[in-house]
């Protein structure tokens, strides 16, 4: 165990890896600060940068971009009261009132500290539980994998809130898009329409950039001009009082544990973690009326929860190979581009990648802290910069990014299609995250289903009657039934104070 952790730090501590970790955190925060763009857009836009790097370095860069994007989103949420991601929406509830009272600096500082604490707890959970979960994963058969993936998809639809039918439509549409290309078993081309480019399947980055990049930019063009930041945020204003520090300790501890636990479950982990942490704080508080009016606990708890969840979300992604959220599925896609198949064997076959990545998670979180406190003035400047000079550049970068993935003009054309569709879907209340998740899981889901059915001799009852597989499938069925009766969604809707953007989970 300690050997492995040391190996990890030795891998992550090389000058090159530290440099890319820093670059990742910096660029990720930069893109995350821009209105409408979150960590998912940041990862997809900067993915091509990682192609020319060693797999470990590339992953360290991407993980840095991921945290940076998450934190950048929080900065924009607190200062503009415009959450870029659903999990940041919770931070807004008390973060923005704090900013209005002239305590924006303290809110941002607490966000940074809480993120760091949550992230560290998540990293420790990942170190502690990752390898043992991978060992369990080794004994899984195709039917178990199928059931787990199905559970992940069902969770993404039912837990995220919004219409069940629309969520299911997006998942099924994503799965269907995943079937485009060469069928692994028979070698037959499906839905390629004679295009050579489609034989390897639809480009994940083209879909993600269309659905998240283009669609988000289009919807923020008109709104972004109206927002103004008046609060001056200086480093001095970030220093919290002693009373503040005392107040945030317990909420951070509670938030981190809630987040760490929920993040490892499939589905919209970070969002649920942030909501539950916030709800818990209200429940334990002596004076419940302070919440929503700038209570510092209301910033500390959800921020530490969603960062802990963001870390533990890597547990299923790395050790079983099943991503729990859209962002994780992009990370999974990135791993596969670098020739690494996540799964139970990753821990034993590629220890430098697994442990190096975990160590760099922690270093990335540390960078985030040391980078963002002195640089806060810079990020505020980025936010104050007129949006009209930013979005054309973002569009250009999306184009060149997608093109350079496979030096393919065809993929840029796909961005037009998915961007157009994505904006219309977003306007009519469809969340794009289930589609991405379905798209990434689709081929694996099909392969495992086919193998499982072959082993069960075509009898679905044999699959259902297996105790493990059957209970996971039963859980999925329960979640659907529960959400039809409005259980989870009712709970979320009652907590939902402001409109939460459909999208990244």
């Amino acid at each position, binding site marked *: 165990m300690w050997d492995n952790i040391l190996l990890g730090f030795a891998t992550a501590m090389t000058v090159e890896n530290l440099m890319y970790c820093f670059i990742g955190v910096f660029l990720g925060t930069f893109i995350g600060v821009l209105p409408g763009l979150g960590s998912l857009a940041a990862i997809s836009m900067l993915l091509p*940068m990682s192609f*020319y790097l060693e797999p470990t370095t590339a992953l360290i860069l991407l993980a840095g971009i991921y945290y940076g994007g998450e934190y950048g989103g929080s900065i924009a949420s607190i200062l503009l009261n415009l959450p870029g991601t659903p999990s940041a929406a919770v931070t807004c509830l008390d973060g923005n009132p704090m900013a209005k009272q002239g305590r924006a600096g303290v809110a941002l500082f607490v966000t940074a500290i809480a993120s760091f604490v949550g992230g560290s707890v998540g990293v420790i959970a990942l170190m502690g539980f990752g390898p043992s979960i991978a060992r369990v994963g080794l004994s899984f058969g195709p039917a178990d994998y199928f059931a787990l993936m199905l559970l992940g998809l069902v969770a993404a639809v039912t837990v995220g809130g919004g219409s069940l*039918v*629309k969520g*299911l*439509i997006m998942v*099924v*549409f994503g*799965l*269907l898009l995943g*079937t485009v290309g060469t*069928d692994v*078993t*028979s070698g*037959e081309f*499906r*839905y390629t329409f004679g295009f050579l480019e489609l034989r390897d399947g639809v480009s994940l980055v083209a879909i993600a950039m269309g659905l998240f990049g*283009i669609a988000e*930019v*289009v*919807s923020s*063009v*008109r709104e972004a001009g109206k927002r103004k930041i008046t609060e001056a945020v200086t480093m001095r204003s970030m220093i919290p009082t002693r009373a503040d520090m005392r107040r945030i300790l317990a909420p951070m501890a509670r938030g981190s544990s809630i987040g760490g636990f929920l993040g490892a479950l499939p589905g919209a982990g970070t969002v649920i973690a942030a909501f539950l942490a916030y709800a818990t704080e209200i429940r334990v508080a002596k004076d419940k009326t302070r919440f929503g009016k700038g209570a510092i606990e209301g910033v500390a708890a959800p921020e530490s929860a969603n960062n802990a969840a963001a870390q533990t979300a890597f547990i299923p992604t790395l050790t079983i190979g099943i991503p729990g959220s859209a962002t994780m599925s992009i990370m999974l896609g990135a791993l596969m581009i670098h020739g690494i198949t996540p799964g139970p064997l990753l821990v034993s076959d590629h220890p430098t990648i697994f442990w190096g990545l975990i160590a760099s998670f922690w270093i990335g979180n540390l960078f985030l802290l040391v980078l963002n406190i002195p640089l806060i003035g810079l990020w505020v400047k980025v936010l104050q910069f007129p949006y*009209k*000079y930013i*979005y*054309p*550049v973002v*569009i*250009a*970068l*999306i*184009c*060149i990014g997608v*093109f*350079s993935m496979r*030096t393919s*003009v065809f993929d*840029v*054309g796909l961005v*037009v299609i998915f*961007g*157009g*569709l994505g*904006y*219309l*879907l977003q*306007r*009519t*209340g*469809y969340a794009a995250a289930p589609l991405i998740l379905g798209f990434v899981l689709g081929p694996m889901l*099909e392969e495992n*289903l*086919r193998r499982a*059915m*072959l082993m069960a*001799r*075509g*009898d*679905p009852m044999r699959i259902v009657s297996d105790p493990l597989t059957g209970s996971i499938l039963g859980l999925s069925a329960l979640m659907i039934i529960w959400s039809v009766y409005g259980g989870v969604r009712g709970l979320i809707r009652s907590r939902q104070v402001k409109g939460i953007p459909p999208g990244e989970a």
Partner: protein
Amino acid sequence: MNIVTLRFVVAGILASIGAAAFIIALGYEFGSARRMGPGYFPAVLSGLLTLLAVSEMITAALKPEAISVDWQPFLAILAAVAGFAVTMYLFGMIPAFFVVIGITTLSENRFGWGAALILTVVTSTGAWLLFSRFLGMTMPLFDWP
């Protein structure tokens, strides 16, 4: 109010994608539950997509609601990306940057040509430095068909 709202149209698009995919999937070998052919999974999925989307169409028709769409930035940005694709194919990266940024600025009235020009020059220089110099990617800066 009209039944044909944006919500109805979008559900309709999804239903037609599902139906088309189903018809195509019938052309692939279906196989059996034990030995699924390449057509099994797509046929089930596209059938499911069509059913779900049709039910969404019915819901949308029963409860029509107006949804606003910002057509100007929507069309401008899509045209810009399409323009990038065509120009990149024909003339290379630098002209493609001029096209994509030029068309994107049409999202707003009175963007200003000077600002657009400065943006383009800065962005294409930056991209050239990052992609060609720093990352060593090979892509044509200028091209002629």
